């Protein structure tokens, strides 16, 4: 029995152990890696990515998938910038109103996504993929392909103002990650995600409004994408129709690397945090140890497989797809 427990614990902590192992590995090769300043750099890179990954975590826990993040992030970032500038261009002068607005837009994108998926009975993979095209397309339509810049120093303080060596946005993200964890563990909605992911038909038979839970999940994910969009603006000082590009595969990879099962019901926000850190540590570390850039994609692939293999409980699954 004790052996069983330690094995379970090992699997549970595997992602974290992988993360620590990677940090030790990179530090051993280049001690510069292990520096507070570098950790701050990794944290900045990971901040928007974490918000996207947390958003999609809720969906994956439900056993669905959401591929609309690129479009959603781009569209919310662009709309946020327009609204921010239109409202005065500074946080003080009413620009802050753009924040709730962007959140609402994110939620709306999620809502449409959820409605298309649930009401038209289109599997989420396809519904969200198509919605992603629509989101990016809308961003192109609105910007006409141009860059929208935000110069407001107060808003940019998210990046430039440091507390204990870490920029403000890192703290914001930590707080939001806790919020997400709280939603996951201490609210009905969060627990219902697990019920749907654990057995949709059973949850339905228990009187759970599965359709509503699904749609709400997509709305919540959309809100987190909007947060990611705004952080991306804070980080780069600009938005354009490709602001959300490259988030799709990397966020889902992070979620799975952290130990969230793609078939639903297993893992959560905590796993995703670790997963995002693993992926960003790898990305940063490969440059820091001086790996030639043409091997980086292959190396990332190998490390990801290694991490997933270590954190999968092979005894409890009969097959994967």
């Amino acid at each position: 029995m004790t052996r069983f427990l330690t094995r379970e614990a090992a699997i549970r902590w595997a992602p974290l152990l992988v993360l620590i192992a990677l940090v030790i590995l990179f530090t051993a090769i280049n001690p510069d890696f292990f520096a507070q300043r570098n950790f701050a750099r990794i944290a900045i890179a990971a901040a928007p990515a974490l918000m996207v990954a947390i958003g999609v975590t809720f969906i994956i826990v439900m056993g669905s998938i959401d591929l609309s993040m690129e479009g959603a992030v781009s569209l919310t970032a662009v709309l946020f910038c327009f609204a921010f500038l239109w409202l005065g261009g500074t946080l003080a002068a009413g620009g802050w109103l753009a924040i709730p607005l962007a959140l609402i837009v994110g939620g709306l994108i999620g809502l449409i996504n959820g409605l298309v998926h649930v009401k038209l009975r289109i599997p989420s993979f396809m519904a969200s993929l198509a919605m992603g095209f629509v989101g990016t397309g809308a961003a192109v339509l609105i910007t006409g392909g141009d860059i929208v810049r935000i110069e407001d120093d107060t808003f940019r303080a998210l990046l430039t103002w440091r507390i204990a060596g870490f920029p403000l946005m890192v703290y914001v993200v930590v707080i939001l990650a806790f919020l997400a964890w709280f939603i996951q563990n201490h609210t009905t909605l969060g627990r219902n995600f697990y019920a749907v992911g654990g057995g949709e038909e059973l949850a339905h038979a228990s009187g759970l409004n599965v359709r509503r839970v699904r749609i709400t999940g997509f709305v919540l994910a959309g809100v987190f994408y909007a947060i990611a969009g705004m952080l991306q603006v804070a980080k780069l000082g600009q938005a354009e129709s490709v602001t959300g590009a490259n988030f799709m595969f990397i966020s889902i990879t992070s979620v799975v690397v952290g130990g969230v099962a793609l078939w639903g019901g297993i893992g959560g926000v905590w796993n995703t945090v670790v997963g995002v850190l693993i992926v960003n540590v790898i990305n940063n570390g490969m440059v820091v140890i001086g790996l030639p850039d043409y091997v980086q994609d292959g190396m990332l692939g190998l490390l990801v497989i290694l991490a997933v293999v270590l954190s999968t409980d092979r005894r409890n699954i009969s097959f994967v797809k």
Partner: protein
Amino acid sequence: MSTFIKDFVEREKINRRNFLFASAAGLTATAVPGILGRGAAFADAGGWSLAWSYRDRASAYWNAIVSGGEAYVESLGLTKEDMTNLINEGSSEKSLADIKAFLAKNAGKGAIASDPNDSPNARPVVEAVRDAGGYVSTIWNKTDDLHPWDIGDNYVAHLSWSGEKPSEDAARLLFEKMGGEGGVVHLGGIPANIPAVERLNGLKNALKDFPNIELLDEQSADWDTNKAAELMSSYLTRYGDKIKGVHCANDNMAYGVIEALKAEGITGMPITAFDGNPEAVDLVMKGELLATVFTNPHWGGGIALALAHQAAIGAFKPSEEPNEHREFYGPSILVTQADAEEFKKTYLDATPTYDWTDRWGLSAGGIVYK
């Protein structure tokens, strides 16, 4: 910025019906613009349909290219809607398929300007145009063994911008600013893209004359702002204070580099970029960017289409032109803080009007192969 919104509102007004339909019902959406749109009136184009095939509408660079094409179309007395946009989304396969579909639709009577996206794609594109009887000029990407004069009159011209020389000039400026010593890092475009390769070569050329400058690292950030920001942070960890200057293969990546440095509180690091986009020029004026290279995409976009169309209507016969008129470099202007304001006034605030029949007026000479 508000001009974008204004443009958008205006655009939306024109297309409101399309837009509403598009949002409401997917399938019908495609039908509406065609059915409600104007009938094709190509009388002024001499019976030829005009098209620009390019990557996407998500960057200032391509927007400027397109605006040049549209300016040419408008100079014919047509509206800019008369130029067809063939967007390949970075896919060579779609690029080729779209061009063939365009030719088929117009029974071969198409005058096309195209960036083939990847250099090997240039050959099938020009061959397809030739076989259909259309006229094409290409920009940027083509393989070295492909020449317009080997294909015939239908492949009117290839226009490129020598990345090497301007990039070298920018690098020299950078090294001088660095005081002739210290480390420099380069952020490159998508590997194997010709401009990416050329711009790196320019940097390497300049290095030969600056023995105390060390190229610390050169990696790809895929032309992307976000990737550049992350790559720059990683450079900072690896090389730290050794980095005294940054050489970027385009403006978008320079934005990312500036933000990555801003996050660290590093100011005054000399950075050079490429493309001369409006935002970059603003940054040059503010001193955040040491220099960028303007390639006048507006003119390039206009003249590439103009060449194809004028050859099509017989305004000139390509085969009678010398080779340096069939393969030539576009202009490159190094924009520094000293001349940025002047530059902005001339090229960005007011778009200069070009005489599109002065076909090689701004040419920087024939393309030379090494």
